[in-house]
C-alpha cells in the first residue's frame, strides 16, 4: 500500500532541503512505499538533487520504495544533465 504526500515548496535548495527531508520522513517509515508529488517545484539546485537521491536510496536500503512524481520539464532537464533521471523519476513520468 502506498502513501501519498506533496511537497508544496517552490524551491529545493540549501535553504529548504532540511524541511523537505522532514516532510518526506514524516510521510512514512522508510520501510513503506511512499509517493511524493513534486508538482509545485520550480527550482532545484545540486543540493536539492543530492537530497532527492539520498532519500530514495535510504528508502530502498530499508526495503521500502520512494517515488517522486510531477516534475516540471525544466527540472527534468536538470536531472537529465546529471544522468540521474532514471534514479529519481517514476518510470511512468514523462522524460525530456
Amino acid at each position, binding site marked *: 500500500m502506498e502513501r501519498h504526500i506533496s511537497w508544496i515548496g517552490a524551491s529545493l*535548495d540549501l535553504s529548504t532541503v532540511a524541511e523537505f527531508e522532514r516532510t518526506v520522513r514524516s510521510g512514512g517509515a522508510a520501510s513503506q512505499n511512499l509517493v511524493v508529488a513534486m508538482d509545485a517545484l520550480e527550482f532545484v*539546485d*545540486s543540493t536539492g538533487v*543530492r537530497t532527492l*537521491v539520498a532519500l530514495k536510496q535510504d528508502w530502498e536500503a530499508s526495503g521500502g520504495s520512494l517515488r517522486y512524481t510531477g516534475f516540471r520539464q525544466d527540472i527534468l532537464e*536538470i536531472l*537529465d*544533465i546529471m*544522468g540521474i533521471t532514471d*534514479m529519481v523519476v517514476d518510470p511512468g513520468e514523462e522524460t525530456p
Partner: protein
Amino acid sequence: MSILIVHPEHDFRQLVRALLEEGGIGSVVDVSSAEAALAVLGAPPPAVVRDPVSLALIDQSLPRMGASALIRLARAELPYRNLPVVVLTEGSCPLSPAEGGVEGATACLTKPFTAQGLLASVCALLGISPPIITNQEHLLEMGEDLALARLVQQGVLSPPLRHPRVQIDAIYEPSVQLSGDMYYWAEVAPGRFGVMLVDVMGKGTAAALISMGVRALAPALMCDIIDPGRVVQSMSQFMVKPYYLTGFYAMIDTVDREILYVNAGHPPALLACQGKVTDLPRTVPPLGLCDGVNYEPQRVSYNPPARLLLYTDGCVERPGQSMLCGIENLRHGLRELGDCDNEQALERLMSDHIPPGNVRDDLCLLSVRLPA
C-alpha cells in the same frame, strides 16, 4: 550586545561565533563580504539585527571591497560613527596607514591568534571582562588545522600548463575552507594531455578528503591507462557510499586534434571552435551512484584555435536561478571570447558571465586553450 564578523571563510566565522557567543560576549552576526556587512549596518531599516552592532571584526583580505573602505562606509552611518573595529591581518599590523596599517582600525590582531588574544582584544574595546576559556582554545586550533589543510589542498592543484599546442589555467574558489572541487592535468604521452575536473557532492572535510583521494589516484591512472573510459571506471571503484561525485575527464590528442571524454553527471563541458559552441554532455551518471555502467568515452574533433571550458556547478547556480540559465550564460560568454589567452578569458567570464554572490558552493572554472 551584537558583534559583526566579516570574514570570507565560513569555518572561521563559525569558530569565532562559537567563541564569542559561548563566552557570553554577545550575539553575533556573521557575513562573508564587505557588501553584506554594509547591508547589516545600513539604514534605513529593515535592519538585519535587532541590536545595533557594538563592535566589528573585519578580515583585512576581503574580496572586492577592502577593510579600509568598509570601515569608512560603515562609519558614514550615524549610529556607527564611533564603531570599534578590530582588523584581522596577516603579518604585522601597524595601526597607522602610513606604516601600511588599515585606515580606521581601532585595533589589529595578527593571524594566527589565540582564543585568549581575540577575547582580550574584543573585551578591552567593549569595556568588559574577558570570560574564562574552557575548550574554545581547542576550537581555534582546529580552525588553524583547517586553514593548513586548505593550503595543502590548494597546493596539489596543477599549476598552469604552457605548451605550444595546449595552455591550461583555472580559477578555484572554495566556499568554505576545504573544497570538494579538484582538478588535475598532465601530458600523459607526447602530444596527449589528460584533463580532469571533479566535484564531490557535499562540502567541508568529508568532500575534501574524497577529492584529495581522487587527486592522489589521478596521476597513476591517467599515465598508465590511455583510455579515458577505463580511467573513470577505475576511479569509480574508489567511491564510498553515500558520497558520490560528478566529473569530467578528457584526453586531448593535439596530434590528431580530437578529444576523447567521459562526463560523469557533470554539467556539459563547452567546446568553442570556429565561432560555434558545442556541449560535451553527460555520458554516464555520477560516480558512486550506480553499478554496471558502461564508461565508453565519446569523441569530438576540433580545429585550432579552439577552447574547452570546464566548470563546476558553483559557476552556474545562483539562488532562484536555474542551472540551465547559468550554463547558457557561460555558452554566450565563451562564444564572445575569441582566441584570447586563458587569463583574459577566465577574468572576462568571471566578471561578465558568472554573477557574484554564490558563497554557498565551491567554484572552479578551467580554460583549455588549443591555439592555432
